[in-house]
């Protein structure tokens, strides 16, 4: 449901995010004819990376045009109506599949603000060991923890990562921390980009309280205030070139049913792709760029879920989203966290139809879903399907399968330590265990990826940064190799998986890179306010 009008009236203007203005914004739904636009820089996508790039370039005086395939949904339109929000905010209703063994369910945002509107708001700096790996193995410059420190600090001033207020914690939040401590682990208070989260746990369907500091309420309006323009409901098909110089993009406006309507073309000396690790390489490939590395090196940060069932009432819907994480096993490639989906989502991931589904879902208020995120070593590819849309191909290696099984075993240990009586597992051949003594059966399972149920919201690396074009699609600062005027500014850039939730890493890398573009690449802006003034 949405917030009733009388409550909205009572709250007045005490929720700042409900007062945010989005100047210079248009929707492709209103297009009545084909259009040709021009800017100093066109940014394709408005998520964790695109919004940052657009904002920084606009603040530097460039005339920036943001093109976003999804619509603008403001904070005041967010509600707890799960189906409605999924239709409005998710690409493909969150039902995309990564093809391979096993098939992996993938969800991403498709709205102004991108996936930051529908993520849990986890906001961690890139671990030092990852930055060191990028510096040492990939030989990327200016990427050590010392060089990145001021960049992270700058991003954090905008996103405001903070820990959860105690008055918003529910039973499940407490169970997670208690279970971990009983095992001698160290639950860390989660850092999330928020300003006074009140614990609704509706993060995945838009934050109606305005607390989550997604791009929608931070970098996008900041960029618009600096003069950037935004066209929502505009899908980019490909980059346009003049020789080896990117000179803009072309695509189609979308109507109210997201069907393509009129065509548009944007002319701009800087073209920045920030459409996510699936669609950015898709656009590059549709633009007939043939570099070997485009679409390769895809990593997916797979996530395996265990549902603990407790005798006590957990009421998992009461209490904030993921107040803690376990980082004790990051060196083994395992991050443990939790997310409580609403009943309709969870039911689809649990077995049974008819009475069997009813029997298990009648226990919803006794359930606690906990998961492990795996820092994968497997890599996949983004390829164009017969319909010219990007498809993801990826199979879990034996090593990552073993890591996944170890992660699931650890999650079960935590849940049993917290008092769970049963654990529902993500394995077709081992669906449930009822005692800590059974955890060994998970570790003894043959490491066979088939039959593991995985999902992800963190794909990355498909146009990664590298020093040579044989190792990556972009240079050390996100410029696409072999062409000029074309840049990447999203999770595609990441040279390897980061082990933690990647939003801050993406924002920081784009900040680092955008500063470099401004120093060395940005042309004398033809129509910029900087020159006009």
């Amino acid at each position, binding site marked *: *449901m949405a917030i009733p009008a009388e409550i909205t009236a009572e*709250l007045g203007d005490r929720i700042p995010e409900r007062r945010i203005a989005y100047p210079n914004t248009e929707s492709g739904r209103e297009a009545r004819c084909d259009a040709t636009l021009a800017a100093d820089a066109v940014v394709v996508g408005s998520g964790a990376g695109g919004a940052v790039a657009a904002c920084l370039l606009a603040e530097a005086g460039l005339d920036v045009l943001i093109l976003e395939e999804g619509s603008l949904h403001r904070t005041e339109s967010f509600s707890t109506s799960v189906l409605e929000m999924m239709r409005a905010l998710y690409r493909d209703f969150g039902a995309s599949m990564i093809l391979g063994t096993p098939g992996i369910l993938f969800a991403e945002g498709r709205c102004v603000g991108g996936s930051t509107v529908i993520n849990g708001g986890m906001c961690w700096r890139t671990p030092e060991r990852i930055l060191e790996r990028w510096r040492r193995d990939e030989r990327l410059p200016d990427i050590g923890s010392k060089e990145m420190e001021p960049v992270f600090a700058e991003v954090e001033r905008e996103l405001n990562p903070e820990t959860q207020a105690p008055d918003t914690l529910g039973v499940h939040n407490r169970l997670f921390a208690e279970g971990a401590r009983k095992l001698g682990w160290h639950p860390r208070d989660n850092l999330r980009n928020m300003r006074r989260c009140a614990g609704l746990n509706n993060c995945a369907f838009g934050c109606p309280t305005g607390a989550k500091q997604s791009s929608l309420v931070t970098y996008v309006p900041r960029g618009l205030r600096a003069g950037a323009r935004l066209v929502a409901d505009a899908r980019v098909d490909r980059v346009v070139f003049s020789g080896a110089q990117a000179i803009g993009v072309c695509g189609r406006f979308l109507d109210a049913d997201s069907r393509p309507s009129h065509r548009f073309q944007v002319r701009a000396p800087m073209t920045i792709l920030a459409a996510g690790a699936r669609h950015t390489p898709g656009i590059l490939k549709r633009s007939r760029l043939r570099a070997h590395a485009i679409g390769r090196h895809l990593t997916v940060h797979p996530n395996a879920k265990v549902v603990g069932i407790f005798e006590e009432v957990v009421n998992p819907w009461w209490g904030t989203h993921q107040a803690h994480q376990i980082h004790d096993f990051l060196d083994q490639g395992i991050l443990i966290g939790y997310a409580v989906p609403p*009943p309709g989502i969870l039911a689809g991931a649990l077995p049974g139809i008819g009475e069997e589904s009813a029997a298990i879902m009648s226990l919803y*208020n006794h359930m606690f879903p906990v998961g492990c995120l795996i820092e994968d070593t497997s890599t996949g590819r983004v390829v164009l399907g017969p319909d010219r849309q990007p498809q993801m191909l990826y199979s879990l290696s034996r090593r990552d399968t073993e890591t996944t099984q170890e992660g699931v075993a650890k999650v079960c240990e935590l849940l049993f330590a917290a008092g769970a009586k049963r654990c529902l597992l993500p394995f077709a051949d081992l669906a449930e265990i009822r005692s800590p003594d059974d955890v060994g059966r998970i570790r003894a399972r043959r490491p066979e990826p088939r039959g593991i149920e995985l999902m992800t919201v963190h794909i990355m690396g498909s146009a990664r940064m590298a020093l040579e074009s044989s190792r990556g699609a972009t240079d050390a600062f996100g410029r696409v190799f072999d062409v000029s005027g074309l840049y990447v500014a999203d999770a595609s850039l990441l040279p390897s998986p980061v082990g933690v939730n990647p939003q801050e890493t993406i924002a920081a890398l784009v900040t680092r890179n955008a500063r470099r573009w401004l120093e060395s690449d940005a042309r004398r802006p033809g129509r910029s306010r900087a020159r006009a003034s």
Partner: protein
Amino acid sequence: MSNVTLPRNLSSSSAAILAAVIDALRPRGHGFDQSIDEYVLLEIDRTLPCLPRLMRLGLPIGLRLLEWGPPLFAGRARRLTTLNRQEARAYLQGWLDSRMTARRLLVHGLRALVLLSFYQHPSVLDAMGVRWDRRLIETVRLRADTLDHAKYGYPR
């Protein structure tokens, strides 16, 4: 004048087959006997344009395969829409357990849509004691009442 809302995206024949699928898959017992099959069907119909292209295009074909599949897959010379609930459920369970990926995925996908629409219905959430709507009002009010504007630098 009738108040019946008709599906906008599904043809009448697809809707009839989907109605049989919903009747077979939807939860029953344990407090889940709400008469909301029509709502579930309309929600799936509204969701259809948002699904991945392949699913969107494949669904009408998949529904027809389900409809005409019993002779082939269940040894019954009847259509799905003429099976009784137990027979239909056993038939669909056969698809869920199939070794053919396409058959399995089709009914898995339909099952996910049916369960999502069913369990998110307000009357079902109410029966489960899940009060997310109440939390919405509580938390919006809590944040408005306790937000430290100075600490967070509002207005920004």
